[in-house]
């Protein structure tokens, strides 16, 4: 293993949350899917899933479906979904509840795939949300904690350049964490499919219901592409956080957050405009906004493969290239500070 790999490994030793948090989420997912309490709460759904557009034949869903399905809280509640569907068809009728597995089996195959696709998308969303927050706090801490406890003096006694050290931390936050999020998403989808199958097999239902190979393949691909896009798109944000971490005499969080907040407020007061706020919002949200963009509004809903092609569009956007240039400049600043900041006092 080369030195750079050891530097990355050291980050995983120090920041155990990077691998422990997704492991915990996976464990909860397994536990929850087997016991049938993955998501709890009520559902609010209009039971038109897959009924607009082409009926969701290839596991495709419209924005609306996704929005609705994102509010599904329980595998158990699938029977409610079924009930609501029937309710929709025959208003005013009462239904007795049916076992979840049975209810799910009652859905037509294309609707099943839609539901499966959304459940998989939810797993991905949870993983990226969890690891995104970890990446944020990791970056803020990366070049600060060893200055605070003075262990920087130990690290600097080793024949490692400051550029190597900072680049390893950057790669951890900008590349490794998104890849871990994608891998955890894929594993999470498999865990959920396995767990739910097991549950359905036990409670009477069709085992292997959540096993939809092409949906699994498409959403795995979407997770990986999302990781790649996040790595490149968020590179300047990571570099900015590292710069703040390298600079802050105290509280890197405030040093990182206050300047943009102040800039937004000053712009508002001085010019009454909010260009900077919009710029920041775009930088932080673009991959997620782009993901579900409907390329042909009205007729075809957004499929997992559309998500992939939407994300790929971001690669060629000018924001991507400019962002990478900014990342390089910010990173150079972080390295310079790490190298020449005097820790004497």
């Amino acid at each position: 293993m080369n030195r750079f790999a050891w530097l990355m490994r050291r980050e995983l030793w120090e920041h155990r949350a990077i691998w422990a948090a997704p492991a915990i989420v996976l464990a909860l997912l397994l536990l929850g899917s087997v016991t049938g309490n993955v998501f709890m709460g009520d559902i609010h759904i209009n039971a038109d899933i897959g009924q607009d557009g082409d009926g969701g034949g290839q596991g495709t869903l419209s924005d609306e479906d996704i929005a609705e399905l994102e509010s599904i809280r329980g595998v158990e509640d699938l029977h409610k979904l079924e009930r609501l569907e029937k309710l929709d068809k025959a208003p005013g009728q009462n239904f007795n509840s049916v076992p979840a597995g049975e209810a799910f089996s009652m859905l037509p195959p294309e609707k099943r795939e839609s539901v499966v696709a959304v459940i998989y998308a939810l797993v991905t969303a949870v993983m990226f949300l969890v690891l995104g927050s970890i990446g944020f706090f990791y970056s803020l801490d990366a070049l600060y904690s060893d200055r605070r406890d003075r262990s920087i003096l130990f690290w600097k006694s080793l024949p490692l350049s400051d550029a190597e050290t900072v680049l390893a931390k950057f790669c951890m936050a900008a590349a490794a964490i998104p890849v871990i999020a994608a891998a955890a998403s894929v594993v999470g989808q498999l865990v959920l499919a396995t767990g739910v199958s097991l549950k359905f097999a036990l409670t009477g239902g069709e085992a292997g219901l959540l096993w939809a190979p092409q949906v699994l393949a498409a959403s795995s691909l979407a997770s990986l592409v999302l990781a790649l896009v996040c790595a490149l798109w968020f590179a300047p944000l990571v570099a900015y956080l590292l710069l703040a971490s390298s600079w802050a005499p105290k509280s890197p969080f405030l040093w990182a957050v206050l300047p943009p907040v102040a800039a937004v407020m000053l712009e508002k007061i001085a010019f009454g405009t909010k260009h900077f706020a919009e710029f920041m919002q775009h930088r932080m949200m673009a991959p997620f906004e782009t993901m579900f963009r409907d390329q042909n509004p009205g007729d075809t809903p957004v499929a997992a493969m559309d998500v992939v092609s939407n994300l790929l569009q971001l690669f060629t956007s000018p924001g991507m290239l400019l962002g990478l240039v900014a990342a390089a400049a910010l990173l150079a600043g972080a390295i310079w500070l790490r190298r020449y900041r005097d820790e004497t006092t």
Partner: protein
Amino acid sequence: MSNLIEARGLSKSFGSTRALDGISFSIPEGRIVGLIGPNGAGKTTALKAVLGLTRFEGELSVLGRDPYHKRHEIMQDVCFIADVAVLPRWIRVQQVVDFVAATHPRFRPEICEQFLSRTDIKRKSRVRELSKGMITQLHLALVMAIDAKLLVLDEPTLGLDILMRKQFYETLLNDYFDGQRTILVTTHQVEEIEHILTDLMFINRGRIVLDASMEDVAGRYVQLAVHPDRAEEARALKPIAIRQGLGRMHMVFADTPRNELEKLGETGVPSVADLFVALMQGDRS
């Protein structure tokens, strides 16, 4: 023999205070140099400059290179222990050993193992679970396993009990120092290191007050224990420091003919601590 460290007109200011005021010195290979001075004298600043951790004015070369711009290069041949508190507290013993082994080309794991096996340190423990003494032992094990040319120690035994401090320096002298390596050490506990030093460097208010080998010190400085009756005669020879003892006056003389002093009382080599006090008082007035 070449000089490992060469400093000329080394200066460093913090605001209006001059931490280093144009000092010049050279440290040849194979010496154990004690850099001694009161708090705020500039010791740590000088060491940080040598280690490339701080910016300075003047010329400084460590192993023929500029430490400020080539820090990670000189760290192949230079080791340092700043004080016991700097090992990362979250790391496990085995992890830190593996990491140094993987990143330091001159690290010899078998020597580290050998040293660690003589201690009670468990490989699975985190540094924060170790006692202060154990942390020092661990750090020493790491440093001793590195085949470095220069070892810099900045108050390495701060906060350790007397047994631990003794053991630290004994290990250093017996197992590490081989006559070719160079050790540069600062400490307040001068009496504990004076028998291992080959050279003394006193620093006060950013300037060098004394820079001499121990042999030179023994040749130049004489401590005289004189009966109060003969104190006036002794005073006439212009001692650099006078201290009242039990029934005797202790005076330190510099460059005074030894035979004249021997007539007045018992003579000897002043301890580093006494010499330090004498020269610091002289420097103040």
